[in-house]
């Protein structure tokens, strides 16, 4: 194999169409992202059929921009990679179809990538990974603690029993009158307020690594509704701060518990919610005290959201293992790592 491995990577699992060119699994030559956020803001959340339509509009433009920015041609490519799940089936299918077609047209191997593996491997652009490691993957659809014994091996050791953390942010955001996606604004408000409401920390005391956020979400909603009924106005800053404190507390405590059960040297905080300042601060603070030897990796903002580069990084590992797909690759919307 040539010293320079180039992977053209596709991501279209939700509301971002992204194509990247990644060299040797750790260098981004291009990472074009077209986001549909403005479109779905009209509806207060992602509408799957609208998302699928936007992906078709964007896919060729984004592919072309990725190849041009990277300055590579098809003959330079080693393989084509694509997210085939989890995600919205109609959205996934656009990336899967485009990637398969390019692989076929240019006689290139096709690498199927799990979207969550992509989120975790975004950390590879920060520094080399050392195994075993732990990852806390938090996004609009997922809240998972993942143990990686070796490269490309993923085991879920903790999972949400109901809502994902990002989902709770969006629902609480709606109550606070914040347009979708609410995470960034809730985070900002939280930094201006104080945890005065002491919302429940669900499952925090339980002897497992699982999460639950629907009770917390309901507690916030009930608090606001009750205040409305008696004509009282609550501080949005304090509500946001109290909600965020409860989420972050649980995420940090469960991560600490996981680090106790699974001693590792690296912790990756991955996924859209990894961009949350409150989470980053609390995680770094807690680990500096209790796990000073654990290296916390939080990918930069552009790589925590959905993007093609992270798929290219995960694909590099899959390619080394020769985990390839054939031309009948389909989208797998419910794809998941195995539970430990």
């Amino acid at each position, binding site marked *: 194999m040539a010293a320079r491995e180039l992977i053209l990577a596709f991501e279209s699992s939700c509301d971002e*169409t992204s194509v990247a060119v990644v060299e040797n699994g750790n260098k981004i030559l291009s990472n*074009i*992202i*077209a*986001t*549909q956020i*403005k*479109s779905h803001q*009209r*509806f207060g959340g992602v*509408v799957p*059929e*609208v998302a*699928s*339509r*936007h992906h*078709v*509009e*964007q*896919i*060729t*433009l*984004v*592919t*072309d*921009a990725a190849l041009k920015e990277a300055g590579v041609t*098809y003959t330079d490519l080693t393989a084509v990679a694509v997210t085939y799940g989890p995600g919205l089936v*109609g959205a996934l*299918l*656009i990336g*899967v*179809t*485009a990637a*398969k*077609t*390019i692989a*076929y*047209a*240019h006689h290139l191997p096709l690498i199927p990538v799990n979207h969550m593996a992509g989120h975790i491997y975004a950390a590879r652009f920060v520094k080399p990974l050392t195994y075993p490691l732990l990852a806390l993957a938090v996004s609009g659809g997922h809240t998972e603690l993942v143990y990686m014994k070796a490269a490309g091996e993923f085991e879920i050791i903790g999972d949400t029993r109901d809502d994902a953390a990002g989902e709770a942010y969006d629902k609480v955001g709606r109550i606070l009158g914040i347009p979708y996606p609410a995470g960034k604004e809730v985070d900002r408000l939280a930094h201006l307020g104080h945890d005065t409401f002491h919302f429940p920390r669900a499952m925090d005391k339980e002897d497992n690594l699982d999460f639950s956020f629907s009770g917390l979400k309901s507690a916030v909603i009930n608090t606001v509704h009750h205040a409305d009924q008696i004509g009282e106005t609550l501080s949005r800053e304090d509500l946001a701060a109290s909600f965020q404190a409860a989420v972050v507390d649980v995420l940090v405590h469960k991560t600490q518990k996981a680090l106790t059960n699974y001693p590792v040297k690296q912790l990756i905080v991955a996924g859209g919610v990894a961009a949350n300042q409150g989470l980053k601060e609390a995680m770094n603070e807690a680990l500096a005290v209790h796990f000073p030897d654990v290296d916390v990796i939080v990918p930069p903002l552009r790589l925590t959201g959905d993007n093609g580069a992270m798929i290219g990084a995960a694909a590099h590992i899959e390619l080394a293992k020769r985990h390839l797909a*054939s*031309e*009948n*690759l*389909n*989208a797998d919307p419910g794809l998941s790592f195995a539970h430990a």
Partner: protein
Amino acid sequence: MRLLALDTSNEAMSVAVLDNDRLLAQTTINHERTHSEQLLPTIDDLVAASGLQPEDLDKIIVADGPGSYTGIRIAVTTGKTLAYTLNIALVGVSSLEVLAANITDTKAMIVPIMNARRNNVFTGVYQWDKGQLINVVTDRHVPLTLLLTELTTLRQPVIFVGSDAAMFRGQIIEALGGLAHFAPDWLNLPQALRLGQLGKDLPPVSVYDFVPRYLRLTEAENNWLKAHPGKGHDVYVEKV
């Protein structure tokens, strides 16, 4: 000129490779498996069976809708990606026209029917004129009852085509009586050979702008536009 024609608008999938007007290979699969799984393997098989490599193709012809939203996205995405990546010509042909083209040697009106649920259909009216298939009433999404009322006033024989026509047979005969004719079963399936012939001489379109003809906004967009009149042409997707 080597042509590849693709139709995945509905349950049946049809793919053909042509050398100008001459068919080199064709497959039509009328069996419930996802188009996403079987389209590319079928293309690969047929191109290889025609003694060709993908880079030997000159033009891609796609049945671009209406039809199942997921179905038309598979053919459109495959077609536009293939045309883009091989730097060859791309054209789209109405999926309804492909069905209409199955019916030849007639002066009658040809009405392809696709079920669009809640007694609505995707349909158009086609007629042969000097060897050309003419779209005399534009493809659209319409309540079946309205279509039948319009056809009744024309007092002309009508041939209905498409696998979905059968489910509306009762209503159609009630409205049109003896003027209504139904295509035999084997002509209700799309044939990519016909698609290839229809698209062969059409001028190429932009691969970047090529999207399915859904003929319908999504429900979410419809509701939003009702609540926000005058909006709707903004750019909603941005490169970040």
